[in-house]
């Protein structure tokens, strides 16, 4: 289990970290919000926290705190283009429902 990246997602993370100029990996976290409960947060990691769990996928270190892991364990992150828009897409086996606007989810 843990968190996995597709090749495309890994490529995007590498180029993002390169252009940012620093960062040891990427953090996937879950925050409460919005109409239906939870949202994903994706951030570069400059400092690893003691409680962080580390998953390595496609050469990228993905850090997840234990609280968030409950919601995202088993998730696969992909990077996709939809018309002109592009971004990360999550295949999360824990998700039960999404809000109508497609911005947040429930487990």
């Amino acid at each position, binding site marked *: 289990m843990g968190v996995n990246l597709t090749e495309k997602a890994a490529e995007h*993370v590498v180029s*993002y970290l390169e*252009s*940012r100029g620093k960062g040891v990996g*990427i*953090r996937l976290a879950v*925050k409460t*919000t*919005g109409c239906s409960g939870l*949202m*994903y*947060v*994706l*951030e*570069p*990691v*400059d400092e690893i926290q003691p409680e962080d769990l580390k998953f390595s996928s496609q050469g990228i270190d993905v850090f997840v705190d234990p609280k968030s892991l409950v919601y995202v364990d088993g998730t696969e992150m992909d990077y*996709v283009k*939809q*018309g*002109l*828009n*592009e*971004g*990360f*897409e*999550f295949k999360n086996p824990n998700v039960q429902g*999404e809000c109508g*606007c*497609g*911005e*947040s*989810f429930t487990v």
Partner: protein
Amino acid sequence: MALLQITEPGQAADPHDRKRAAGIDLGTTNSLIASVREGVAATLPDMEGRHMLPSVVRYTAEGPIIGAEALEQAALDPHNTIVSVKRLMGRGVEDVRSLGEQLPYRFSEESSGLARIETAAGVVSPIEVSAEILRSLVERASETLAGELDGVVITVPAYFDDAQRQATKDAAQLAGANVLRLLNEPTAAAIAYGLDTGDEGVIAIYDLGGGTFDVSVLRLRRGVFEVLATGGDSSLGGDDFDHAIAEWLIEESGFEGDLSAELQRALLMKARSAKEALTSAEQATISHSDADFKVDAELSRDAFNELISPLVDNTIRACRRSVRDAGVALEEIDNVVLVGGSTRVPLVVSKVADYFGAQPLNDIDPDKVVAVGAALQADVLVGNKPDEEMLLLDVLPLSLGLETMGGLSEKVIARNTPIPIAKAQEFTTYKDGQTAMLIHVVQGERELVDDCRSLARFELTGIPAMVAGAAKIEVTFRVDADGLLSVSARETSTGVEASVEVKPSYGLTDDEITQMLKSSFDHAADDAAQRSLAEARVEAGRVIEALGNALAEDGEALLPAQDIDMLQQAIKKLQERLSGDDTRAITEGTEMLGRASEEFASLRMDAAVRRALAGKQIADLDNEMSDNEV
């Protein structure tokens, strides 16, 4: 599920608070839109991967076609294909007539005032044409950012006057875009290079495009960019380099006689690709062969440089003039920024470097630098950089002006103008031999100085004795991001100078400000018959814009949701009236909106006063004022 982007640690906004902003370079030939994503400002491509949108609109009975597809048809359908509409913005029919010889359009005869063009889809105004271009770019950005834009920053040439700026804003409104502010193109280029983060400095922007050359000298003071001088040549650019090469080719071929239009076009195309190749290569081969024209030539970088050297020297002469007009010494210029595709030519870079005595900044793509700067500014103005205090968008609560002859107040900076801002206006002496001038700074909307609030008086002395009207006194009002006003007066032939600093909202309570606004509204209503419709529209536009911006900035922090809703409804109502031409209805609508937003305004004022007083002692301000009073 919506697609997710990476955000800096701790900056992820809740989904519905995420703000989408973009910067637009609305160009004569090409337009671009840029946005900040994952911390990087970049121009946004269309589906085919093209970043530049040709600023061309073709009107057909089926509807408008915009961009590259319209450009392809320009030669076949010249009357209905509008190019270079930027040159017509805010211009009257008469101004346009003089340009008209170069433009194939049928200008509408019956309309007085602003220029209009007859097309297959009816009569269109330059504002409507620009709105099509803006709409296309805004749609592209909305698709890329997966949602409606909250605000845009649109760039305009530094030399655009109020009418041209207003026309640009009207076009944006027509396109359904919320304009956070118009930004001068050279300022945007400076922002793209982060030059706004310094405190002080003088910057020159050298913009050489396909058909035009612009040079601007800017001064950065207390985080405010002020345009010191602009210059250039509206018919000098990379196209002239192409012509120089084509002429050389014709000489090489030994051809004599008249060239057909097709042959000319073909040679120019080849010249252009040779020119662009010579930017990175030392040598280019150009060959052409058909029934009447044969040439096979090698053009070296050195030979090319020789061909274009006189043209580049012309641009340097224009730089010299602008630096002189700006009243700065060459050594005072800290940075030179290159903009426009033709600044890729190595000879241009080296001549610019030689003249300014410094390596110019050119590592951002010169086609994109203006849009990138506008995007950075838009991102801040829309509120995506909470911990960065750069360029707080705020507005002047009341107009600032000067007392002129007859006790009238001449407004220099209008109420609701976003700050920071700097504006200069020229005045002159009214008596022969006058050697001093009293500058009386006032605040308020009324016409008579007695009805306005006096902020400061100071005297400019040492004006050389001349006949009345000969002296040129430039008065500059500068309001920084904190609302601090400084006024300076300078006699331009001798350079004698005097100045004063004052805090414009200092000492006024919210009630007083409200009262002053109300009385001006009442007054405005009485005068409505005489006020022109245009003035009413401008004012309404300003109020809508200011309130829109204020709502975007502080709405959710200060107001319950239903009040925000009520204000937005009120804005919509006024916008509906704006499309009509009933001066009175618009003025009253503005007044209503003013009243509806009074409470919000005073809440904001409270917040602003708290911020301002935290930094400044009241006694200091008093001293500053009396020290300078004469």
